[in-house]
């Protein structure tokens, strides 16, 4: 009791004064939360006041806090990183004079700047410990250095959010079907799940059939649900799982899933619906990125993505002019992760390239006190990517069960400025499918001049790579279909494996 109160007091004081957060304090709060859940089954009152739980804050207080955090972050960046020291010196800008109003005087940091010279963004006051590389489906991965303290802070915050947001409990088992080289998300998922007391297994992005078989297999562990209850994966790998489950005629009864978490890629509404239908669990998305952790976005019931104000500052800007995006229009997320949550790789006004729409009217949902955008629509690569974003295309394509998943498609721009969608299907001709796609594209008012179907991937113009393409190999052969647990079950499975090997 007293120890927790002391940790919470120290944490809040550090945040208020912009001082270094002691990872031990956050770790203590996270561990005590777990103990509280074990004793009471639920957190006490006002759990929204816990770190990262989106408490309502008086707007005036929040504005003051934002100004202070921005100044503290800018000061640290200018004092300790070569990149911002140079930028601010060239402009004659004093970080101590900045606030939310004058924040736009700080130039936007392009993704390319970080990608080209990651060391220029590392604080001289930090001790880099982990090099986190983004998946880099866009060609070159981005390097983000993390200090040990930051990792511990991030893990503690993830533990709190796993326990409160995800409702993870010791009876659960979480499977992670993401790229095994993505150290930071993997470490975060494993640490937060096991700190809650849940079990954790890393599947990697192996053959979807193997993952489905493992999800269906009984665990037979004392104190745990009979089968894996939570799955974390990317949208494209989820689409591969959905296709395999649909192909083999599996349904919710074949799995014990309670929740599927998807991150890192655009999750379309039809894919979510199909996944929920075959896997039998709600599919939830969140918005987190390596560069701006622990800041992130949480979806609300009204379909917005609400961004935490505690750990960083969100702006939605026009990707060409860097002017604020008007309500109802599409812009990109520009984010400033705050010191003292981030201490190693310091970024000011970092252009994430993630496209979102600004709500036309102020939200009146349960999270209305947090800044809202639409869900991420796609990645900015030019005006066409905003006019015809990934989400619109996936909403169109992934609603058609005849299209093989993960969807392989490309959009080309014709000389007259119109766009053409190229899509891989299983077999041609597919006239009915094409007619349906065209009709739905018209109904959705997609600026498409035409849709061209292919049954040969080699003929398809180069399609954007997806995370599911990072397929990992395994010596494992497919296990037997799941049987009800019985004493001889494991022996039978062993024999079967030996026979097929």
């Amino acid at each position, binding site marked *: 009791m*007293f*120890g927790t*109160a002391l940790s919470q007091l120290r944490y809040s004081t550090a945040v208020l004064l912009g001082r270094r957060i002691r990872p031990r304090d956050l770790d203590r709060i996270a561990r*005590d939360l777990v103990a509280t859940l*074990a004793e009471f089954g639920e*957190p*006490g009152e*006002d*759990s929204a006041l816990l770190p990262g739980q989106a408490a309502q804050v008086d707007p005036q207080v929040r504005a003051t806090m934002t100004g202070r955090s921005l100044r503290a972050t800018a000061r640290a960046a200018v004092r300790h990183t070569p990149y911002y020291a140079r930028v601010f010196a060239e402009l004659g800008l004093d970080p101590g004079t900045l606030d939310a109003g004058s924040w736009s005087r700080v130039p936007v940091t392009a993704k390319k700047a970080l990608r080209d010279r990651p060391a220029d963004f590392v604080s001289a006051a930090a001790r880099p410990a982990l090099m986190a590389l983004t998946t880099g489906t866009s060609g070159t991965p981005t390097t983000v250095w993390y200090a040990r303290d930051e990792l511990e802070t991030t893990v503690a915050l993830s533990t709190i959010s796993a326990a409160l947001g995800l409702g993870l409990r010791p009876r659960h088992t979480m499977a992670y079907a993401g790229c095994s080289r993505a150290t930071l998300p993997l470490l975060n998922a494993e640490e937060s799940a096991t700190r809650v007391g849940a079990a954790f297994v890393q599947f990697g992005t192996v053959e979807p059939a193997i993952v489905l078989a493992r999800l269906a297999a009984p665990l037979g562990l004392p104190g745990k649900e009979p089968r894996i209850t939570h799955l974390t994966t990317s949208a494209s790998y989820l689409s591969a799982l959905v296709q395999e489950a649909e192909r083999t005629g599996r349904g919710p009864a074949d799995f014990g899933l309670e929740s599927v978490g998807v991150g890192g890629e655009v999750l379309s509404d039809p894919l979510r619906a199909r996944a929920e239908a075959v896997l039998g669990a709600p599919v939830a998305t969140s918005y987190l990125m390596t560069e701006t952790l622990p800041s992130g976005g949480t979806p609300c019931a009204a379909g917005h993505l609400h961004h935490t104000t505690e750990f960083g500052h969100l702006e939605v800007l026009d990707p060409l002019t860097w002017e604020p995006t008007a309500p109802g229009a599409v812009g990109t997320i520009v984010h400033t992760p705050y010191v003292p949550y981030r201490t190693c790789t310091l970024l000011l006004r970092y252009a994430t390239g993630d496209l979102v729409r600004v709500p036309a009217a102020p939200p009146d949902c349960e999270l209305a006190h947090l800044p809202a955008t639409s869900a991420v629509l796609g990645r900015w690569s030019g005006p066409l990517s905003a006019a015809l974003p990934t989400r619109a295309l996936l909403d169109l394509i992934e609603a058609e069960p005849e299209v093989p998943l993960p969807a392989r498609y490309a959009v080309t721009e014709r000389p007259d400025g119109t766009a053409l969608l190229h899509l891989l299907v299983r077999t041609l001709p597919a006239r009915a499918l094409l007619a349906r796609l065209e009709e739905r594209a018209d109904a959705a008012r997609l600026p498409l001049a035409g849709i061209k179907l292919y049954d040969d991937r080699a003929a398809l113009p180069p399609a954007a790579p997806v995370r599911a393409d990072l397929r990992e190999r395994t010596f494992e052969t497919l296990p037997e279909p799941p049987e009800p647990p019985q004493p001889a079950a494991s022996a039978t499975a062993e024999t079967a494996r030996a026979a097929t090997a």
Partner: protein
Amino acid sequence: MSGVALAALSGCVALVMAVAGTYLARVRMPRPPVGVYEPADIVLLCVGIVLAPLLYLELPGTAVAAVFGVVLGLAVQFTLAPVVAARWPGAGWATATTWLLAAAGCAVTALLHDRPTGVRVGTDLLIAVAVVGVANLWTQSGMRAAHVAALAAALTCYDLVATALTDVTLRFATRVQGRPFAPMLALTGGQHPVSVGLGDLLLLVLFPLVAAKAYGRGAALMAGAVGVAVTGAISALFAVGALTSGFPLLTALGPLIVAQHLYWSRRLGGERTTAQWRAAPGAVRSGPAVRRG
């Protein structure tokens, strides 16, 4: 010493226990979002209990009364708040009313400072309400039977030293006696009042509540019966003249609390968590959560 008053003392202890048990069954107190009791909390509690009388002996009597008055007032307020909030949910005046009631109770008791009976009645009422509230707060915020047993064991040793071997308790009792907010439930005044100390009363009331949570109704009833029996037996010794001045009640009660805890925990294979207690069918259950206004 009056035999009637001595018998009434056991009755009063039983009554406070019963009220506390009813409170536990009906009223849900708010608790912080995060926090469980740990050994360190019990150590801190012990240190506080040991240091408080020593500190108060150094302070002027009026200051001691003022400190006790404020502490009692706060305890009465947080005891009444969930009751009023549950009775009139969403009423903005509910919280203000509990503050008013607590302040009025303290003010009246303080104003009666030259009428010994008035001071006793006022103080006894405040103490009884505060003990019901504090025992419930600790129980409902997850204090375990093992914690209470440890606390009882530590305080038994302390009580033995403070009451039996030194004059700390006696000096302290003489100091606060008859003053408003004296930390004891006293039925008579004078040189040798019929009374039970605040710490003793708190443990008498606390253990049955925690036993109800940890081990169920049977353990709670046994704990209550043992507590009343100990109070009654000591009263009887006073009545027949076998005891004449302050007796460290905890030296008898403490070991019995530890014994009961060991017995039930062996018999049932460990104690229940708060969640298991609230989920148990037919167990003492509390109403819907009450939000602090």
